[in-house]
């Protein structure tokens, strides 16, 4: 029999006004096992807590029931109080008589009666409580960052700066991500490369950071603090340790007609290539789809010219297994495909480009050397129309229902820079709304209008029609002057919506991290835990969690890093002791529990059991890994034999509560 103490809190008048706290304490004092019962103005106050501690010691209490506010509010407080008095913290139960009683009832008699019943249920539960001790697991002091864009780079740098080892896995041959393709960055207009490449170099030079470029995550096992990840290092047919990045091979390769994806296919490169001059690692990669040597064994020029002897046509994919304590997802975004927006003639005319293509066309390292020229004829455009919200805020099924967030600002940037460099160019921006919250953002947009004379027109483009003379007829509505405009343009720039990278969905499955319907990773709490995934040990950085601009991405990257540092600086992780436990005497080994476990916490082993007449039987039984189990209880109901139970919320405890309530 437990020795239970009941403590009824007044919460000032919050409880005491509609619940007769004295009557509750008195009624509960007669419950079986209750040896002490008291009421007090504020149980959570220091004096209140001392009252509990003293009672635990003086009356040798083995269980405590607090009738107070919601356990979501003060369960931790009272558990600590009990622990301080030498009682196992899991011997404390809370009866919620504030949020779920005094605050919702006006009639004092009814409130008091209900409070007594709730207290009785808690007493009935405590009778069946057992001391629980949280399990501990070690922490591998190494982090994995998946994705090497600005988000991944910043997270890795911050983690490394705190003294921990970090690996970056990047699927492209170089880290840097989307930001490497940008020309200038809003709202300050500093050049993207100038602020990004030093960070890339820092990554390469930091001995605590290891970059797996041209690699992908293939398998993830384990749990917070103890992940085992298999990384596939794709064959680049160049020995990374030997290649000096001199680039000679990329000049001599005879296969010249490979679309240059770094420039979004606006020009071509060779079959062996280094994406751009500041690539990290600066190592050549052979594109197996185009290399004549790999395709039909006829060439070998790159091997001949390479003085370092780095070319290795026989290289194969490598699989590396590494252990990590934390994983950061930084898989980023891509502009959506514009196939379903025929009205903008993107596929028909090379002069209709996406904003990212426009970035390349204005970038000094881009296909035109930074001079803005029409892709079709290489002439200077005199009229440019920018269209916003192409596929954003689109619920028709063609695009994305959300706002892509970055388009208003980069379009203002494009328009402003165009007018700055080519004042003879007329620039129109068609918008639905201009959304510029952010420091110096609205000022930036207004400068485009007021100082640079960009024509902002409220309305949408309905149709872009390529004309015989090479111009583009843009038909659009001007909602303010209530007229339909027909603009003869030389170029049209589409602000395509952005979407999570395609690699995110299979990765989420590997990580058991949840995603929303748009394939953005879900955060553990939208406001209070914005950089953590609900799956312990998985953190989110950058646009994989939602559309973000660079400052926001860097801020989130730092936040994710600090969460990782917090985790890795612990030597041991203390788990939640309310986990599932299988009674092997009852277990059938049927695998029902394993199938419903979202965490892969259940495994099976063949175990010997002594049977009557000195015989031994081998049975398959379930085993729960307490470090992985999160305590949802799905397995307990899936189990037909009742072998699986949940500590802290056991079948018998819940039934005792049911009985007490229905009495």
């Amino acid at each position, binding site marked *: 029999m437990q020795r239970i103490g009941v403590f009824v809190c007044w919460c000032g008048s919050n409880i005491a006004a509609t619940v007769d706290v004295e009557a509750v304490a008195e009624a509960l004092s007669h419950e079986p096992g209750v040896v002490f019962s008291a009421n007090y103005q504020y149980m959570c106050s220091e004096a209140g807590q001392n009252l509990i501690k003293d009672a635990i010691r003086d009356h040798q209490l083995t269980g405590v029931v607090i009738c107070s506010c919601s356990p979501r509010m003060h369960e931790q407080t009272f558990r600590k109080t009990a622990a301080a008095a030498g009682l196992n913290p899991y011997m404390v139960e809370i009866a919620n008589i504030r949020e779920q009683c005094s605050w919702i009832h006006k009639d004092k008699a009814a409130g008091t009666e209900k409070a007594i019943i709730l207290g009785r249920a808690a007493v009935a539960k405590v009778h069946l409580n057992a001391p629980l001790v949280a399990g501990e697991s070690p922490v591998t002091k190494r982090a994995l960052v998946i994705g090497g864009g600005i988000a991944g780079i910043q997270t890795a740098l911050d983690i490394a700066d705190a003294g921990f080892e970090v690996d970056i896995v990047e699927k492209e041959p170089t880290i840097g991500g989307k930001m490497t393709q940008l020309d200038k960055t809003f709202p300050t207009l500093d050049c993207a490369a100038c602020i990004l490449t030093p960070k890339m170099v820092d990554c390469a030079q930091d001995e605590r950071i290891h970059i797996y470029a041209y690699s992908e995550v293939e398998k993830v096992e384990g749990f917070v603090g103890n992940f085992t990840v298999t990384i596939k290092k794709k064959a680049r047919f160049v020995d990374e340790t030997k290649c000096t990045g001199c680039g000679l091979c990329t000049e001599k390769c005879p296969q010249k007609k490979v679309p240059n994806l770094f420039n979004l296919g606006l020009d071509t490169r060779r079959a062996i290539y280094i994406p751009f001059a500041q690539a990290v690692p600066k190592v050549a990669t052979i594109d197996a789809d185009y290399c004549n040597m790999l395709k039909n064994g006829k060439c070998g020029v790159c091997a001949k010219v390479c003085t370092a002897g780095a070319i290795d046509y026989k290289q194969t994919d490598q699989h590396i297994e590494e252990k990590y304590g934390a994983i950061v997802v930084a898989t980023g975004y891509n502009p959506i495909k514009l196939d379903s927006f025929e009205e903008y003639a993107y596929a028909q005319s090379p002069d209709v480009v996406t904003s990212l293509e426009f970035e390349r066309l204005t970038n000094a390292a881009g296909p035109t050397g930074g001079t803005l020229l029409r892709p079709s004829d290489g002439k200077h455009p005199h009229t440019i129309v920018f269209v916003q919200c192409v596929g954003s805020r689109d*619920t028709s099924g063609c695009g994305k229902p959300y706002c892509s967030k970055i388009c208003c600002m980069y379009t203002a940037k494009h328009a402003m820079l165009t007018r700055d460099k080519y004042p003879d160019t007329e620039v129109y921006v068609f918008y639905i709304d201009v959304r510029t919250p952010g420091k110096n953002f609205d000022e930036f947009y207004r400068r485009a209008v007021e100082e640079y004379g960009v024509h902002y027109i409220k309305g949408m483009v309905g149709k872009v029609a390529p004309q015989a003379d090479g111009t583009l007829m843009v038909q659009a509505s001007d*909602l303010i002057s209530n007229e*339909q405009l027909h603009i003869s343009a030389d170029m049209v720039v589409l602000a395509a919506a952005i979407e999570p990278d395609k690699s995110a969905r299979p990765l989420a499955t590997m990580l058991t991290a949840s995603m929303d319907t748009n394939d953005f990773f879900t955060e553990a709490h939208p406001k209070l835990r914005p950089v953590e995934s609900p799956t312990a040990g998985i953190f989110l950085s950058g646009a994989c969690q939602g559309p973000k601009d660079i400052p926001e991405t860097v801020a989130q990257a730092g936040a994710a890093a600090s969460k990782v540092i917090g985790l890795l600086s612990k030597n041991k992780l203390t788990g939640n002791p309310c986990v599932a436990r299988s009674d092997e005497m009852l277990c059938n080994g049927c695998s029902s529990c394993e199938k419903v476990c979202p965490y892969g916490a259940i495994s099976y082993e063949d175990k010997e059991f002594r049977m009557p007449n000195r015989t031994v039987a081998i049975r398959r039984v379930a085993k729960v890994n307490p470090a992985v189990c999160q305590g949802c209880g799905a397995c307990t109901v899936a189990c037909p034999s009742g072998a699986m139970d949940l500590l802290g919320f056991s079948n018998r405890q819940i039934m005792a509560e049911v009985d007490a309530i229905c009495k």
Partner: protein
Amino acid sequence: MTNSQELKETLARISGVDVRKCMRCGKCSGTCPAYDEMEYHPHEFVYMVEKGEIEKLMASPSLYKCLSCFACVERCPRGVEPAKVVEAVRLLVIRQQGCNHMTPDQIPALLDEDLPQQAIVSAMRKYSK
């Protein structure tokens, strides 16, 4: 219920369009081939219905300028379907002229051999709502 509210509800029923989904981007009007012929343009149709100014629309010749090409329906990013609103306002006018519903049992009497099947079906679709 006021007349305008009643019209609004009838219109919502006939057209099946929720005008509140409109985010006023104007793409319908940007796309409309008959724009210059109209007094009220596609986006105004949607907005005026929302404001309850349906009688003004019913009186406007704009109604008959819409070609029912459905370009606005095709391109609306919110799936508002302005052309269906226009069609529904036309039907409201027809209703007011007393040419009300048609029920399936009225059809046999109206048939003649030269009438194309498609016309019967369209008429049925139009007058049965």
